[in-house]
């Protein structure tokens, strides 16, 4: 057994449980691993909080103890987020029209909206996981968010071609404004649901919710905007989701800052 393999054994070992024979043999011959095992076996003294503090804690909790309704199952929130997504996109199509949908080829429609739907589903899952502390995450929330943004941009870059565009910025600003006009109310509806959960990291859940709201805005302008210029889509359509995620992050940071200020003032 090598020291590297010994690391794996130490990591998986609980407490002072017996070492496997090969690990014990390695420890007998390796001074470095022997010292490490001895230090980890010498766990900190079993210390306990004072009885008076425990009583203080119990008294504070019992003072306003009322029954609470546990958080609804994840599928309820996932369905609610999906409903918000569909309702806002449907409402926008009625208002703005579906010129973008008409000009897309079949393969572009399938690719774009499949990626958008999958990304929205994954971000919704991440949000639901963040609402309940200790939830299982297949991928860490921040990696999820960044990964989805990168995937979307790569797919868009691959699906669309470069075209000449005379008024790149004015056209783009119109799209950006339209997208944000629908992602903001979407974000508000999401916040109404997400606040029911435990907001342990306001910045992270803000960025995730902002990203989801940005996907709503992006879907709206993909349905509405007939401009298939690759740069237009990457910069202005992609800009909707990026700005929404950043906006969500900034709001989360503001909430965290206000919370800190309140806690710092408490003696």
């Amino acid at each position: 057994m090598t020291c590297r393999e010994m690391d794996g054994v130490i990591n998986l070992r609980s407490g002072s449980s017996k070492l496997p024979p090969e690990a014990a043999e390695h420890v007998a011959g390796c001074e470095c691993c022997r010292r490490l095992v001895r230090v980890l076996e010498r766990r900190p003294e079993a210390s306990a909080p004072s009885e008076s503090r425990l009583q203080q804690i119990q008294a504070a909790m019992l003072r306003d103890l009322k029954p609470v309704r546990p958080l609804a199952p994840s599928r309820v929130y996932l369905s609610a987020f999906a409903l918000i997504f569909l309702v806002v996109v449907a409402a926008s199509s009625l208002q703005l029209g579906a010129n973008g949908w008409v000009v897309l080829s079949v393969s572009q429609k399938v690719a774009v909206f499949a990626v958008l739907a999958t990304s929205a589903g994954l971000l919704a899952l991440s949000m639901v996981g963040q609402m309940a502390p200790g939830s299982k995450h297949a991928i860490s929330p921040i990696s999820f968010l960044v990964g989805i943004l990168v995937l979307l941009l790569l797919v868009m870059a691959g699906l669309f071609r470069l075209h000449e565009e005379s008024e790149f910025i004015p056209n783009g600003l119109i799209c950006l404004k339209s997208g944000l006009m629908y992602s903001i109310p979407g974000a508000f509806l999401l916040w109404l649901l997400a606040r029911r959960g435990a907001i342990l990291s306001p910045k992270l859940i803000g960025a995730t919710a902002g990203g989801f709201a940005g996907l709503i805005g992006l879907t709206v302008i993909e349905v509405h905007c007939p401009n298939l210029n690759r740069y237009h889509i990457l910069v202005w359509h992609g800009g909707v989701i990026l700005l929404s995620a950043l906006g969500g992050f900034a709001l989360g940071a503001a909430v965290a800052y206000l919370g800190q200020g309140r806690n710092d003032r408490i003696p």
Partner: protein
Amino acid sequence: MRRYQQADSAAAAALVELLSPKLYRFFASQLGSRADAEDMLQDVWLRIHRVRHTYRPGEPLLPWVFAIARCVRVDNYRKRHRISLREMGVDVLPEPPQRKDGTSDLPSFEELVGALPQSQCEVLTMLKVNGLSIEEVARATSSTAGAVKQKAHRA
């Protein structure tokens, strides 16, 4: 936990008695100061009380509790950092703590983890002091089992 959510005061008291030693050790092994650890213990119970509705019956309890504890520890660290930036120390530096066992040349667990980055220190403390499994630590830190193993290996 279910009875606590239904406002059973005996269940609330029992939870505090059962979980406080684990939580206290989590804070104490990373802070060293008994007073600070007790303050954070009080903070974490206030937060647990506020968000008790977010525990879903049937889910493992320890990852839920330690996810909240971790958040309290991070907030406390940031608060101490903000305060230290505003304050200027004028007192004499405290003497380094004496080793209890003068004959041992082994570092203590706290000294060992104190030199590690926060994320590795936290993972090692949960695994070795609090006895959580890799899966439970992954849930508590909003991470994956692979990432937890990697941090433990690096530590």
